[in-house]
């Protein structure tokens, strides 16, 4: 009787929706934590990697991501339309600012001209990739 009750949970849309939102929250927290760890690693190279295997952390985040995508294939999401919202400008600005600081920090021991060239090249390549994948 209990097993039957347990298995009927998996047939309820509410369960899959709840799991979907939890995975979204877990992904957000994981990516935030990973960003923090990469920032510390940038300030003190070898400090984080000496305590944690960052490859395993990335692997765990990838697993969460694929679970998030996989859950989205459930019938509970069949009626949902493609997401039509806009990404927060503050989020994009914040990400770009943080990425720029990390890149500059990794170049700190290079000569000034090398820093300028590398930074500009990174920005150009980033813009080209963004135009290719995110705009039509």
């Amino acid at each position, binding site marked *: 009787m209990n097993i039957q009750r347990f298995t009927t949970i998996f047939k309820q849309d509410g369960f899959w929706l*709840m799991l979907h939102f939890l995975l979204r929250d877990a992904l957000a*927290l994981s990516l935030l934590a990973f960003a923090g760890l990469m920032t510390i690693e940038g300030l003190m190279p070898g400090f984080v990697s000496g305590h944690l295997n960052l490859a395993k952390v990335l692997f765990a985040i990838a697993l969460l991501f694929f679970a998030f995508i996989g859950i989205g294939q459930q019938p509970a999401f069949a009626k949902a339309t493609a997401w039509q919202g806009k990404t927060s400008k503050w989020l994009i600005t914040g990400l770009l600012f943080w990425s720029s600081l990390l890149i500059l920090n990794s170049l700190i021991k290079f000569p000034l001209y090398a820093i300028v060239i590398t930074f500009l090249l990174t920005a150009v390549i980033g813009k080209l990739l963004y135009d290719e994948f995110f705009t039509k």
Partner: protein
Amino acid sequence: MTHTLSIPKPWQARYNIARVLLVLAFTFAAAYFAFLVLFPSQSLVFDFKNPQASKNTLLDPRGADDSILDKGNIPALMPLLVDAPVMRGDYSLFHINILTDSKFTKSKANFTWPTGETTLRKSYRAFFLPIGSPITEINPNQTAIHSGSLLSFADGVFLIDGNLVRPIGDASIFENLGYDWDDVMPASEEDMGAYEKGKIVTLGNIHPDGTVLHEIDTDAYFLIRDGEKHPLLNKSISQSYLQGTHPIEISSASSTVIQGCILTISGLFSKNYACETPIDALAPLPGDTFQISTQLDQEIAFQTMDIEFTDTVNIKNMRVSLSTIKQRILAHYGQ
């Protein structure tokens, strides 16, 4: 008509509870990481069934008579010596766990479990070499580059070890071995080409022949040569071997300051010996290696030996860790 995703009302309470638990889990993980950072530990291991395995971080298991004991068969009353190289010398606690070989114990009729103890001393591995004959003459070969010299070439620092030139792993290994940055000499390609390339110098490497040790409390000098520490009888002889460089500083107290604990036996199916002891008294002594001696009163066979160095959780150790972090950040940005 657009359909947006939302959780049905019956599931919202469960979602909120699960969300709180998720945040608590991440907070706990962050706190655990902070604990690992503020109170670091170091674990070392030796697998006597796989003595050549690369995962063996405890070095050179041997008897007090220099017999090789890397298979784990320990004669009665023979101290088993192993060297434990550490990144930091100021840990507070030492814990040892030795798993015995059950095949050995089952093969012996009327076997009774031996009793024994583990002791630790701290210095450089070269300090524990046997004392050789004193050197009574000035160094006959006073070339600038010789065994024991430190050279810089390209982006690396190298150590001359006999006829080998060996790269030093990183700056922390250089400093842990007691070397002075002022002693590093720039080398040309010709200088480097005169030597064969050797293995990378890692934590716990024994200082090579030609290294001069200086006992800071007795003002005695020693030269490492052919696996022995040879006393250098006077200052002019010492200076002829140093040639303006700094000696590796050691302390005679490394022979006499010993910490230890009595091994206790436990375990249901596989018996293991374990004990724990504070090692704060060893922290001030110079050196990058703990020499661990384990002695039991009867013959025994070991399977694995696990050692852990940890910090006592207190404000003082936390401040030391924070200070180390600050120094590390300043060092990275060139201060």
